[in-house]
Protein backbone atom coordinates (compact mmCIF):
# COMPACT_ATOMS: atom_id res chain seq x y z
CA UNK A 1 0.00 0.00 0.00
CA UNK A 2 1.29 3.41 -1.03
CA UNK A 3 0.27 4.90 2.29
CA UNK A 4 2.63 2.60 4.23
CA UNK A 5 5.61 4.26 2.58
CA UNK A 6 4.18 7.72 3.15
CA UNK A 7 3.49 6.81 6.78
CA UNK A 8 7.06 5.55 7.26
CA UNK A 9 8.39 8.77 5.74
CA UNK A 10 6.15 10.89 7.98
CA UNK A 11 7.09 8.89 11.06
CA UNK A 12 10.81 9.34 10.29
CA UNK A 13 10.37 13.11 9.95
CA UNK A 14 8.25 13.49 13.08
CA UNK A 15 10.60 11.43 15.26
CA UNK A 16 13.62 13.24 13.79
CA UNK A 17 12.01 16.62 14.47
CA UNK A 18 11.18 15.61 18.04
CA UNK A 19 14.80 14.61 18.64
CA UNK A 20 16.00 17.83 16.97
CA UNK A 21 13.72 19.93 19.18
CA UNK A 22 14.82 18.02 22.30
CA UNK A 23 18.47 18.58 21.34
CA UNK A 24 17.69 22.28 20.96
CA UNK A 25 16.15 22.46 24.43
CA UNK A 26 19.01 20.46 25.92
CA UNK A 27 21.65 22.69 24.30
CA UNK A 28 19.58 25.80 25.19
CA UNK A 29 19.39 26.80 21.54
CA UNK A 30 16.32 28.37 19.96
CA UNK A 31 16.44 26.04 16.98
CA UNK A 32 15.75 22.52 15.84
CA UNK A 33 19.19 20.87 15.87
CA UNK A 34 19.48 18.56 12.87
CA UNK A 35 15.92 17.21 13.00
CA UNK A 36 15.74 16.74 9.24
CA UNK A 37 19.19 15.16 9.10
CA UNK A 38 18.29 12.71 11.86
CA UNK A 39 15.04 11.87 10.03
CA UNK A 40 17.06 11.19 6.87
CA UNK A 41 19.33 8.84 8.82
CA UNK A 42 16.25 6.93 10.04
CA UNK A 43 15.01 6.58 6.47
CA UNK A 44 18.44 5.46 5.26
CA UNK A 45 18.58 2.84 8.05
CA UNK A 46 15.04 1.69 7.24
CA UNK A 47 15.69 1.45 3.51
CA UNK A 48 18.92 -0.50 4.10
CA UNK A 49 17.38 -2.95 6.57
CA UNK A 50 15.48 -6.11 5.78
CA UNK A 51 13.12 -5.68 8.72
CA UNK A 52 11.32 -2.80 6.98
CA UNK A 53 11.06 -4.61 3.65
CA UNK A 54 7.26 -4.51 3.56
CA UNK A 55 7.31 -0.73 4.10
CA UNK A 56 9.80 0.13 1.39
CA UNK A 57 9.24 -2.34 -1.45
CA UNK A 58 6.68 -2.25 -4.22
CA UNK A 59 3.75 0.11 -3.82
CA UNK A 60 4.95 1.32 -0.41
CA UNK A 61 8.28 2.37 -1.91
CA UNK A 62 6.45 4.27 -4.65
CA UNK A 63 4.78 6.31 -1.93
CA UNK A 64 8.22 7.51 -0.81
CA UNK A 65 9.54 7.91 -4.36
CA UNK A 66 6.62 10.16 -5.22
CA UNK A 67 7.60 12.67 -2.55
CA UNK A 68 11.23 12.41 -3.50
CA UNK A 69 10.22 13.28 -7.09
CA UNK A 70 8.11 16.20 -5.83
CA UNK A 71 11.26 17.66 -4.33
CA UNK A 72 12.17 19.99 -7.21
CA UNK A 73 8.64 21.42 -7.63
CA UNK A 74 8.51 22.03 -3.88
CA UNK A 75 11.88 23.78 -4.03
CA UNK A 76 10.59 26.00 -6.84
CA UNK A 77 7.58 26.92 -4.69
CA UNK A 78 9.99 27.56 -1.81
CA UNK A 79 12.01 29.94 -4.01
CA UNK A 80 8.81 31.77 -4.95
CA UNK A 81 8.00 32.51 -1.32
CA UNK A 82 11.39 33.85 -0.25
CA UNK A 83 11.64 37.40 1.02
CA UNK A 84 13.72 38.54 -1.95
CA UNK A 85 12.72 42.18 -1.47
CA UNK A 86 14.20 42.23 2.04
CA UNK A 87 17.44 40.73 0.72
CA UNK A 88 17.78 43.57 -1.78
CA UNK A 89 16.75 46.28 0.65
CA UNK A 90 19.22 45.30 3.36
CA UNK A 91 21.77 47.69 1.88
CA UNK A 92 25.38 47.17 0.91
CA UNK A 93 26.51 45.73 4.26
CA UNK A 94 24.02 42.87 3.96
CA UNK A 95 24.76 42.21 0.31
CA UNK A 96 28.54 42.29 0.74
CA UNK A 97 28.39 40.11 3.88
CA UNK A 98 26.16 37.54 2.17
CA UNK A 99 28.15 37.46 -1.06
CA UNK A 100 31.53 37.28 0.70
CA UNK A 101 30.37 34.42 2.94
CA UNK A 102 29.21 32.43 -0.10
CA UNK A 103 32.38 33.07 -2.12
CA UNK A 104 34.69 32.02 0.71
CA UNK A 105 32.56 28.94 1.48
CA UNK A 106 32.50 27.91 -2.20
CA UNK A 107 36.29 28.16 -2.27
CA UNK A 108 36.57 25.86 0.76
CA UNK A 109 34.54 23.01 -0.80
CA UNK A 110 37.42 21.49 -2.82
CA UNK A 111 39.82 21.98 0.12
CA UNK A 112 37.70 20.12 2.66
CA UNK A 113 36.56 17.46 0.15
CA UNK A 114 40.21 16.71 -0.52
CA UNK A 115 41.04 16.28 3.17
CA UNK A 116 38.21 13.79 3.51
CA UNK A 117 38.99 11.79 0.39
CA UNK A 118 42.74 11.73 1.06
CA UNK A 119 42.15 10.25 4.51
CA UNK A 120 39.77 7.76 2.95
CA UNK A 121 42.32 6.77 0.33
CA UNK A 122 44.99 6.28 2.99
CA UNK A 123 42.60 4.21 5.03
CA UNK A 124 41.66 1.98 2.11
CA UNK A 125 45.28 1.58 1.10
CA UNK A 126 46.14 0.59 4.68
CA UNK A 127 43.28 -1.89 4.65
CA UNK A 128 44.52 -3.27 1.36
CA UNK A 129 48.04 -3.45 2.79
CA UNK A 130 47.01 -5.52 5.80
CA UNK A 131 44.80 -7.67 3.63
CA UNK A 132 47.52 -8.74 1.23
Amino acid at each position, binding site marked *: MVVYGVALLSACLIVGMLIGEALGVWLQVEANVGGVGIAMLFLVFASNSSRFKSLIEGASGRGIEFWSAM*YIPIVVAMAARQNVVAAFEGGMTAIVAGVAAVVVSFALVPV*LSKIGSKKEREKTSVNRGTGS
Partner: protein
Amino acid sequence: MDILETVFIRNSLLVAFAVVGLTLWVSYLVADKFTHGRIHGSAIAISLGLVAAYFGGKLTGGNNGVADLTLLGGVGLMGGGMMRDFAIVATAFGVKLEELKKAGLAGVVSIFAGVIVSFIVGALVAIVYGYSDPVDITTIGAGAVTYIVGPVTGSALGASSEIIALSVAAGLVKSILVMIGTPMIARYIGLNNPQSAMVFGGLMGTTSGVAAGLAATDPKLVPYGAMTATFYTGLGCLLGPSILFFIIRALV
Protein backbone atom coordinates in the same frame (compact mmCIF):
# COMPACT_ATOMS: atom_id res chain seq x y z
CA MET B 1 -13.74 37.58 -10.43
CA ASP B 2 -15.49 36.59 -7.23
CA ILE B 3 -15.99 33.06 -8.50
CA LEU B 4 -12.34 32.80 -9.55
CA GLU B 5 -11.15 34.03 -6.18
CA THR B 6 -13.45 31.68 -4.26
CA VAL B 7 -12.33 28.63 -6.21
CA PHE B 8 -8.63 29.58 -6.14
CA ILE B 9 -8.61 30.25 -2.40
CA ARG B 10 -10.60 27.16 -1.53
CA ASN B 11 -8.20 25.01 -3.59
CA SER B 12 -5.03 26.96 -2.94
CA LEU B 13 -2.67 23.98 -2.78
CA LEU B 14 -3.96 22.61 -6.09
CA VAL B 15 -3.50 26.03 -7.70
CA ALA B 16 0.10 25.96 -6.46
CA PHE B 17 0.66 22.48 -7.96
CA ALA B 18 -0.69 23.67 -11.31
CA VAL B 19 1.24 26.94 -11.34
CA VAL B 20 4.53 25.33 -10.28
CA GLY B 21 3.99 22.53 -12.80
CA LEU B 22 3.48 25.08 -15.56
CA THR B 23 6.57 27.01 -14.43
CA LEU B 24 8.68 23.85 -14.58
CA TRP B 25 7.28 22.92 -18.00
CA VAL B 26 8.17 26.34 -19.40
CA SER B 27 11.60 26.24 -17.71
CA TYR B 28 12.52 22.82 -19.10
CA LEU B 29 11.33 23.93 -22.54
CA VAL B 30 13.52 27.05 -22.37
CA ALA B 31 16.48 25.04 -21.06
CA ASP B 32 16.11 22.56 -23.87
CA LYS B 33 15.41 24.90 -26.81
CA PHE B 34 17.46 27.97 -25.94
CA THR B 35 20.39 26.74 -23.86
CA HIS B 36 20.54 23.22 -25.33
CA GLY B 37 20.56 21.77 -21.85
CA ARG B 38 23.57 23.78 -20.72
CA ILE B 39 21.48 25.43 -18.01
CA HIS B 40 19.38 22.97 -16.04
CA GLY B 41 15.63 23.44 -16.30
CA SER B 42 15.22 23.46 -12.54
CA ALA B 43 17.83 26.25 -12.26
CA ILE B 44 15.68 28.35 -14.55
CA ALA B 45 12.53 27.44 -12.61
CA ILE B 46 14.15 28.39 -9.30
CA SER B 47 15.34 31.71 -10.74
CA LEU B 48 11.83 32.39 -12.09
CA GLY B 49 10.51 31.60 -8.61
CA LEU B 50 12.89 34.12 -7.04
CA VAL B 51 12.01 36.81 -9.60
CA ALA B 52 8.31 36.16 -8.98
CA ALA B 53 8.96 36.37 -5.25
CA TYR B 54 10.57 39.78 -5.72
CA PHE B 55 7.55 41.15 -7.60
CA GLY B 56 5.16 39.45 -5.20
CA GLY B 57 6.91 41.13 -2.29
CA LYS B 58 6.95 44.51 -4.07
CA LEU B 59 3.23 44.29 -4.88
CA THR B 60 2.00 43.18 -1.47
CA GLY B 61 4.68 44.50 0.87
CA GLY B 62 4.62 41.11 2.60
CA ASN B 63 7.43 38.78 3.64
CA ASN B 64 6.43 35.66 1.71
CA GLY B 65 6.98 36.60 -1.91
CA VAL B 66 4.35 35.24 -4.25
CA ALA B 67 2.53 33.52 -1.40
CA ASP B 68 1.17 36.87 -0.18
CA LEU B 69 -0.83 37.28 -3.39
CA THR B 70 -4.37 36.14 -2.59
CA LEU B 71 -4.68 33.88 -5.62
CA LEU B 72 -1.32 32.17 -5.04
CA GLY B 73 -1.50 31.60 -1.29
CA GLY B 74 -1.07 27.86 -1.82
CA VAL B 75 2.53 28.41 -2.92
CA GLY B 76 3.21 29.29 0.71
CA LEU B 77 1.98 25.89 1.85
CA MET B 78 3.64 23.98 -0.98
CA GLY B 79 6.98 25.73 -0.47
CA GLY B 80 6.72 25.98 3.31
CA GLY B 81 8.96 24.31 5.86
CA MET B 82 6.79 21.21 6.34
CA MET B 83 6.64 20.21 2.68
CA ARG B 84 10.26 21.15 2.10
CA ASP B 85 11.48 18.98 4.96
CA PHE B 86 9.15 16.13 3.95
CA ALA B 87 10.51 16.10 0.39
CA ILE B 88 14.12 16.48 1.56
CA VAL B 89 13.80 13.45 3.84
CA ALA B 90 12.18 11.50 0.97
CA THR B 91 15.30 12.10 -1.16
CA ALA B 92 17.26 10.03 1.37
CA PHE B 93 15.32 6.97 0.20
CA GLY B 94 17.79 4.68 -1.53
CA VAL B 95 20.89 6.42 -0.15
CA LYS B 96 23.60 3.91 0.69
CA LEU B 97 24.83 3.89 4.26
CA GLU B 98 28.44 3.39 3.11
CA GLU B 99 28.45 6.70 1.21
CA LEU B 100 27.43 8.53 4.36
CA LYS B 101 30.08 6.82 6.47
CA LYS B 102 32.77 7.60 3.89
CA ALA B 103 32.16 11.35 4.11
CA GLY B 104 31.07 11.42 7.73
CA LEU B 105 34.21 13.01 9.19
CA ALA B 106 34.69 15.53 6.37
CA GLY B 107 30.99 16.38 6.72
CA VAL B 108 31.26 17.09 10.45
CA VAL B 109 34.44 19.15 9.96
CA SER B 110 32.74 21.14 7.21
CA ILE B 111 29.79 22.10 9.46
CA PHE B 112 32.11 23.65 12.05
CA ALA B 113 34.32 25.24 9.37
CA GLY B 114 31.26 26.59 7.55
CA VAL B 115 29.73 28.28 10.60
CA ILE B 116 33.02 29.78 11.78
CA VAL B 117 34.23 30.95 8.34
CA SER B 118 30.90 32.55 7.36
CA PHE B 119 30.75 34.24 10.75
CA ILE B 120 34.27 35.65 10.46
CA VAL B 121 33.62 36.93 6.94
CA GLY B 122 30.34 38.55 7.98
CA ALA B 123 31.93 40.10 11.07
CA LEU B 124 34.83 41.50 9.02
CA VAL B 125 32.42 43.06 6.54
CA ALA B 126 30.52 44.63 9.45
CA ILE B 127 33.76 46.12 10.81
CA VAL B 128 34.74 47.41 7.35
CA TYR B 129 31.34 49.11 7.08
CA GLY B 130 31.99 50.94 10.34
CA TYR B 131 30.20 48.89 12.98
CA SER B 132 32.14 48.86 16.23
CA ASP B 133 29.74 47.54 18.86
CA PRO B 134 30.51 43.86 19.56
CA VAL B 135 26.77 43.02 19.68
CA ASP B 136 26.25 44.56 16.22
CA ILE B 137 29.31 42.86 14.74
CA THR B 138 28.32 39.47 16.19
CA THR B 139 24.74 39.77 14.95
CA ILE B 140 25.75 40.70 11.40
CA GLY B 141 28.37 37.93 11.41
CA ALA B 142 25.69 35.50 12.58
CA GLY B 143 23.42 36.71 9.76
CA ALA B 144 26.11 35.67 7.28
CA VAL B 145 25.83 32.19 8.83
CA THR B 146 22.09 31.89 8.04
CA TYR B 147 19.04 34.13 8.24
CA ILE B 148 17.88 32.14 11.25
CA VAL B 149 21.16 32.30 13.20
CA GLY B 150 21.28 36.11 12.74
CA PRO B 151 18.02 37.00 14.52
CA VAL B 152 18.43 34.21 17.12
CA THR B 153 21.87 35.58 18.04
CA GLY B 154 20.76 39.20 17.81
CA SER B 155 17.79 38.78 20.10
CA ALA B 156 19.85 36.75 22.59
CA LEU B 157 22.39 39.58 22.74
CA GLY B 158 19.81 42.39 22.71
CA ALA B 159 20.74 43.87 19.33
CA SER B 160 18.55 46.63 17.87
CA SER B 161 15.79 45.60 15.45
CA GLU B 162 17.58 47.50 12.69
CA ILE B 163 20.70 45.35 13.10
CA ILE B 164 18.59 42.19 13.31
CA ALA B 165 16.86 43.11 10.04
CA LEU B 166 20.28 43.67 8.50
CA SER B 167 21.46 40.23 9.65
CA VAL B 168 18.34 38.60 8.15
CA ALA B 169 19.04 40.41 4.87
CA ALA B 170 22.63 39.16 4.83
CA GLY B 171 21.39 35.59 5.37
CA LEU B 172 18.80 35.96 2.61
CA VAL B 173 21.43 37.25 0.18
CA LYS B 174 23.54 34.20 1.03
CA SER B 175 20.66 31.79 0.58
CA ILE B 176 19.60 33.26 -2.78
CA LEU B 177 23.16 33.38 -4.07
CA VAL B 178 23.69 29.71 -3.16
CA MET B 179 20.48 28.80 -5.04
CA ILE B 180 21.58 30.60 -8.20
CA GLY B 181 25.36 30.23 -7.96
CA THR B 182 25.72 26.53 -7.15
CA PRO B 183 24.92 25.11 -10.61
CA MET B 184 27.27 27.66 -12.19
CA ILE B 185 30.20 27.00 -9.89
CA ALA B 186 29.71 23.25 -9.29
CA ARG B 187 32.14 22.17 -11.98
CA TYR B 188 34.96 24.34 -10.64
CA ILE B 189 34.72 23.17 -7.03
CA GLY B 190 34.41 19.46 -7.80
CA LEU B 191 30.80 19.25 -6.69
CA ASN B 192 29.93 16.00 -8.46
CA ASN B 193 30.01 13.23 -5.85
CA PRO B 194 28.35 12.41 -2.52
CA GLN B 195 31.44 13.34 -0.47
CA SER B 196 31.85 16.83 -1.89
CA ALA B 197 28.06 17.31 -1.65
CA MET B 198 28.20 16.57 2.08
CA VAL B 199 31.10 19.00 2.50
CA PHE B 200 29.20 21.56 0.41
CA GLY B 201 26.07 21.22 2.56
CA GLY B 202 28.11 21.60 5.73
CA LEU B 203 29.98 24.67 4.47
CA MET B 204 26.97 26.53 3.05
CA GLY B 205 24.48 25.51 5.68
CA THR B 206 21.49 27.43 4.40
CA THR B 207 18.99 24.59 3.99
CA SER B 208 16.92 26.41 1.35
CA GLY B 209 20.00 27.49 -0.58
CA VAL B 210 21.61 24.06 -0.48
CA ALA B 211 18.32 22.32 -1.32
CA ALA B 212 17.70 24.47 -4.38
CA GLY B 213 21.34 24.79 -5.44
CA LEU B 214 21.91 21.03 -5.48
CA ALA B 215 18.55 20.35 -7.12
CA ALA B 216 19.63 22.57 -10.01
CA THR B 217 23.07 20.93 -10.15
CA ASP B 218 22.36 17.21 -9.78
CA PRO B 219 19.30 15.94 -7.89
CA LYS B 220 21.23 12.80 -6.90
CA LEU B 221 23.44 14.93 -4.63
CA VAL B 222 20.53 16.49 -2.74
CA PRO B 223 20.26 14.03 0.17
CA TYR B 224 23.99 14.23 0.96
CA GLY B 225 24.12 18.01 1.02
CA ALA B 226 20.84 18.39 2.86
CA MET B 227 21.90 15.93 5.55
CA THR B 228 24.84 18.05 6.74
CA ALA B 229 23.14 21.40 6.07
CA THR B 230 20.38 20.67 8.57
CA PHE B 231 22.88 20.55 11.44
CA TYR B 232 24.43 23.88 10.49
CA THR B 233 21.76 26.27 11.73
CA GLY B 234 21.61 24.46 15.07
CA LEU B 235 25.36 24.74 15.51
CA GLY B 236 25.25 28.39 14.46
CA CYS B 237 22.57 29.18 17.04
CA LEU B 238 24.70 27.39 19.62
CA LEU B 239 28.00 29.17 18.84
CA GLY B 240 26.71 32.64 17.81
CA PRO B 241 25.46 34.11 21.08
CA SER B 242 28.14 32.27 23.11
CA ILE B 243 31.72 31.52 22.04
CA LEU B 244 31.69 33.65 18.88
CA PHE B 245 30.29 36.65 20.77
CA PHE B 246 32.88 36.26 23.56
CA ILE B 247 35.68 36.19 20.99
CA ILE B 248 34.38 39.32 19.24
CA ARG B 249 33.94 41.10 22.58
CA ALA B 250 37.51 40.26 23.57
CA LEU B 251 38.91 41.46 20.25
CA VAL B 252 36.98 44.69 19.69
